[in-house]
């Protein structure tokens, strides 16, 4: 028997992780419907007819054969939602770009206003992304966070490392790992502080390089899936991901509490966390990606992350939400 409720998946069509989640929902949760929308997919033009009734938007959004009834949406999985491209019938390039902005404001704005369970609300996810914010909140939530310096000055790095006796254990991590070239990556790396130029020409982040095991923790609300990453030789395991071993790991009680606190502060129901587990048991917080990938973890560990995500979305989708307050989660952030 169906509940009449829908799980809405908003993501790019090449997001294969969402393929798994949609299939899981269809195969194991027949009580809810599933609608997937890719706002940037211009195979079919966007069609919208929605009206404000009381404090809720009602009506339909269609994309070719896909039709979404807003009143049925009980849960939203929001991953890689790129902006619409503009109606293909608009020939003028500038006019189409302008129309695309209009479509984005209308479509993404209307979807963001849905009073549903979110994984994650895009505004909540965006609030958690800036690394300086993350690190401050991580400390406030009880995590151990490595000493961190942000500067444009190489000599400031040298002085800072000397002051803390970490000249041999300093790493640099770019804010964005995508490099200048297609296929280029800027991994986190240990650096020789004495060899840095006096002026770096770019605001850069430096941290104390903590010795220990790489840990990836995938959080689906209160279900935590952690694994230790072995078999890599670099400071940053990502370039060696293909050959790395991923071994499931118990999460210490204190870390569970800190993760929960961190997610509540930002209003997140999903997060991909990176830690270094040091000798002595401390898990040092490195970062959290609110829309981070988990497919490779499930592949290597067999941890049922897709099943957990689908179950949470399906169970939350059928709950009544008398108050239309999508912004409620955001109030927890900051």
């Amino acid at each position, binding site marked *: 028997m169906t509940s009449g409720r829908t799980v809405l998946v908003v993501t790019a069509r090449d997001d294969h992780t969402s*393929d798994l989640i949609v299939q899981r929902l269809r195969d194991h949760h027949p009580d809810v419907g599933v609608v997937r929308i890719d706002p940037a997919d211009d195979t079919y033009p966007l069609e919208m007819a929605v009206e404000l009734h009381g404090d809720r938007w009602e009506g339909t959004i269609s994309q070719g054969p896909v039709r979404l009834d807003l009143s049925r949406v009980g849960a939203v999985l929001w991953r890689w939602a790129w902006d619409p491209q503009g109606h293909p019938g608009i020939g003028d390039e500038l006019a189409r770009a302008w129309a695309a902005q209009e479509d984005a404001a209308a479509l993404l704005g209307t979807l963001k206003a849905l009073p549903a369970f979110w994984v994650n609300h895009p505004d909540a996810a965006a609030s958690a*992304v800036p690394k300086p914010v993350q690190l401050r909140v991580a400390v406030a939530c009880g995590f151990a966070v490595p000493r961190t310096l942000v500067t444009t000055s190489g000599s400031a790095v040298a002085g800072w490392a000397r002051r803390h006796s970490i000249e041999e254990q300093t790493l640099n991590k770019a804010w964005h790992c995508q490099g200048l070239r297609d296929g280029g990556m800027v991994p986190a790396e240990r650096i020789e502080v004495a060899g840095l130029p006096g002026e770096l020409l770019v605001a850069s982040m430096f941290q104390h390089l903590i010795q220990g095991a790489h840990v990836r923790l995938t959080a689906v609300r209160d279900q935590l899936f952690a694994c230790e990453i072995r078999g890599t030789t670099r400071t940053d395991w*990502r370039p060696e991901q293909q050959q790395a071993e991923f071994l499931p790991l118990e999460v210490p009680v204190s870390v569970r509490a800190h993760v929960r606190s961190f997610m509540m502060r930002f209003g997140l129901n999903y997060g991909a966390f990176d830690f270094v587990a040091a000798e002595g048991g401390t898990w040092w917080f490195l970062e959290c990606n609110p829309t981070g990938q988990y497919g490779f973890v499930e592949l290597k560990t067999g941890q049922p992350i897709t099943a957990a995500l689908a179950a949470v979305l399906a169970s939350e989708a059928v709950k009544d939400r008398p108050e239309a307050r999508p912004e409620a989660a955001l109030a927890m952030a900051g």
Partner: protein
Amino acid sequence: MTATASPTAPLPFPLQREITVPAALAPDIPGLVYDHVRGFNTIGGKAIDPVRLGTWTTTYNTAGNDNKSDEESK
């Protein structure tokens, strides 16, 4: 007087240490078709198993890209 970077200055730190990584996997899968109605990718009309295909086994520059989050946070 404020110093300015020379036009011949090196790449900003840390891009000097950019590395090249293997090409994306997902776009090269033959026969991959997105099924708009069912909401997932298929081959020959059947749902694919991304786990077996390993379509996300890189963390960059492909469908399995951590950095495809809106803010490119990784």
